[in-house]
């Protein structure tokens, strides 16, 4: 402050603020130190070393051995790898849109004024409380082909149910159905968004003679589109990484006939069953790139359809 014109207190104060700001660097870093340590040791370092491992052959027992792009080349010719991509794609393409549409429909229903609404909402959220291991065991029992609940219900309507988790043609569908049981989290987010839609918009639409569908399409959906966008993208990313349920219903095998061998499950097998750490790291990096690309595409395309209130 001595460098400045004496007497003018405003710049002096500003300089003092600036100096304080710079002096605070140490203080700020001290407060975020836990995260910083965690970031460096458990995110940044692993991030780069897994990139390195992806170019090596590494079985834990001996030191990693540089093999260049060989892991990536081998992946392209690995039928199980290609199968795991196909399975994951199949799962994502059906489970995510289904989940979003279901969540919107449920949110609209639960948003109505009706007796018992808080209880309904709570019960819908409750499946999210159940641990995935318990969820998988429970649904395995429901999907039991001979004495399971689902086929008993189908049988009541005269339908011969499939063997579900035992049939490679139905096992992914079974896991998709199981995933829809946890749609309550998205519903809760959408309900919060619906509460924020200004009532006047509906009144204006009514005056213009809008039909129910027009009100939904032109008012409700644009107003809740940020949340729809959010649940879509988080849904896609987590569908890419589906693991626990598939692991449990297939005993870690990804069966029958590799039909539930999802990407993460195959990666886990390569890393921790066969100890092909390099190979698995290459898979991890391809997954990372896929997540990045999808996120970018969805973000780009969302600019056109997502409506953000800038007020």
């Amino acid at each position, binding site marked *: 402050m001595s460098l400045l014109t004496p007497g003018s207190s405003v710049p002096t104060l500003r300089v003092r603020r600036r100096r*304080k*700001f*710079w002096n605070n660097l140490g203080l*700020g870093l001290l*407060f*975020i130190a*836990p*995260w910083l340590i965690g*970031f460096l*040791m*458990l*995110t940044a*370092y*692993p991030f780069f*070393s*897994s990139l390195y*491992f992806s170019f090596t052959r590494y079985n*834990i027992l001996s030191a990693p051995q540089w093999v260049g792009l060989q892991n990536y080349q081998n992946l392209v010719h690995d039928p199980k790898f290609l199968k795991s991509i196909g399975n994951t794609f199949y799962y994502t393409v059906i489970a995510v849109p289904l989940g979003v549409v279901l969540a919107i429909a449920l949110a609209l*229903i639960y948003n*109505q*004024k*009706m007796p018992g*609404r808080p209880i309904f909402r*709570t*019960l819908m*959220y*409750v*499946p999210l*409380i*159940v*641990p995935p*291991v*318990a969820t998988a*065991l*429970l649904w395995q*029992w429901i999907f039991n082909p*001979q*004495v399971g*609940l689902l086929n008993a219900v189908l049988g009541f309507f005269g339908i011969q149910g499939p063997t579900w988790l035992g049939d490679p043609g139905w096992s992914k569908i079974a896991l998709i159905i199981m995933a829809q*049981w946890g749609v309550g989290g998205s519903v809760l*987010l959408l309900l919060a*968004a619906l*509460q924020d*839609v200004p*009532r006047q918009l*509906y009144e204006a639409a*009514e005056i213009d003679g809008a039909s*129910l569908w027009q*009100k939904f399409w032109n008012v409700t959906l644009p107003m809740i589109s940020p949340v729809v966008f*959010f649940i879509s993208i988080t849904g896609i*990313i987590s569908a890419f*990484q589906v693991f626990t349920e598939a*692991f449990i219903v297939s005993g870690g095998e990804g069966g029958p006939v590799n039909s539930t061998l999802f990407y993460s499950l195959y*990666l886990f097998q390569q890393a*921790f069953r066969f100890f092909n*750490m390099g190979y698995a790291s290459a898979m*991890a990096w391809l*997954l*990372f790139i896929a*997540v990045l690309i999808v996120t970018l595409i969805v973000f780009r395309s969302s600019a056109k359809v997502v409506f953000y209130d800038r007020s």
Partner: protein
Amino acid sequence: MTALEPAPSSTAPSAPPSNASIRRTQRAGRVMAFVVALVVTLFFAFPLYWMVITALKGDAEVFQSPPTFVPHPAVWSNFLTSLSQIPFWSYVRNSLLYAILSAIGAALSASIVAYGFSKVKWPGREAVFFLVLITMLLPYQVTMIPTYLIFRSIGWTGTLLPLIVPAFLGNAYFIFLMRQFIRTLPDELADAARIDGCTEFRVFWTIIVPLIKPALAVVFLNQFLNAWKDFLGPLLYLNDPSQYTLSLGLQQFQSANGQEWALLMACATVFTVPLFVLFFFTQRYFVEGVTFTGLKG
């Protein structure tokens, strides 16, 4: 019919008063919505009912077709049998250790770090915070293998440490949530204390922490739940049955006794019940945690 609108308050004079037929359709719509909501809710709740009643069925009744919807007689001893077949209390102890310690770690670290990202002004803060947000995009598979190797090299595999210690180092999602909360507190509070000569840490501890108890509860409960439900972590790091958490123990029990559905459902029920109790007493924190995250503020 109002199926697509937010619930109008019952006194809202939106409809022209003379138009009784509109009123009638509106009421019919509402009754329909109620029925649909009831059916949907039953669909969501039924699997849980199924889990509990299967846990109470005798061997013959489990495999009876068509299935029965009320166990007769209820075999309460299934619970005792299932608990005696696995080292249940040891699993519970390990799960509790993991859940409670990592939840304490998550609440502590998220609040300290979030304070550094909201109430302390320092150069580069926003850029670093952006980095925090970016890490949320990183799939866990990318860091999983090297992280495993780190913990293996320092001899932590086979203990709960790799599961608990990282929680003390902050989780991006919780830091974000906590920062959103702390930002709503007025800066004047901290400034007043600073003028009185409080150190920054004292400001945090004595002024801010008491005010962020709800957010601390949100983080604590969410991490407790995450840890109790975690399967991959224990699967990676625990290798001796005496260290297993309930998730891992139950999965192992299932691979060994795949067809004992009544016992498996009894285990699954006992595994889930503590979370239900917790959930019903602390519901509002969960709902806050969900609605809080990023969509507002």
